[in-house]
């Protein structure tokens, strides 16, 4: 799982550089996010521009991060979703759970 991290305006931006999140790499994404939260980075934006495909375990990894950030009074939001990835959030109504912006800059 290739990810890069950036600090912007008090948020940690996490860039996922994989085209595909499925049960082969979602646990790694989940653990990466949980580790960030443990380190005190509780305000996270996951930038998904490169992600062309996400399965239920990928959604689960992001939801897990969301819940853990919330438990520490932080938040986990999403940006730059490709249309078909966004439709997965809509089907599961997870678009009502996550704050989702078209672009990372739209958060600021």
């Amino acid at each position, binding site marked *: 799982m290739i990810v890069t991290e950036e600090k912007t305006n008090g948020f940690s931006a996490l860039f996922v550089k994989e085209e595909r999140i*499925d049960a*082969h790499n979602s646990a790694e994404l989940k653990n990466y996010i949980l580790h960030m939260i443990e380190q005190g980075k509780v305000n996270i934006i996951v930038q998904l521009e490169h992600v062309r495909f996400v*399965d239920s*375990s990928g959604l689960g990894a992001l939801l897990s991060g969301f819940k853990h950030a919330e438990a520490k009074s932080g938040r986990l939001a999403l940006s730059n979703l490709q249309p*078909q990835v966004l*439709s997965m959030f809509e089907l*599961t109504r*997870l678009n009502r759970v996550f704050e989702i912006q078209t672009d990372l800059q739209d958060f600021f």
Partner: protein
Amino acid sequence: MNSTANFQVDVVIPTQTKYLHLIGSIGEHIGKDLEDFSGDRNALAYHLNLVLTEATTNAIKHANSEDPKDTVRINIDIQEQELIIKVYDHGQGFDLETIPNPDFDQLNESGMGLFFIKTLMDSVTYTKSGDCNVLEIRKLLI
């Protein structure tokens, strides 16, 4: 001549998640090649990718017989009006009818896979077949 003639794909993989990408991509390509499909072919391609990924993941994760030589067989049969996916596992099986839909007001990290399969395809059954179980998924192509 019908531009989308019948064709078949049969894959046998070890129970390892690294093969999900291969299986999903096959579904994606098939979706894009179905030129007679009147709906959105890119959406169909994503949905076949997803459904094959979810069904194969379940066969790997929930039905692993602990035998490192255990395999999952995935069969895809594309007919003129219908696409039929069969995923065979060697696990203890389960009762598809007892699996509830996710609770959308309090979503859980897991339990969304079968929901996607049921929602995006036209019919799903899970039955015993000889010494294995088969999840059969059908999608109308008309």
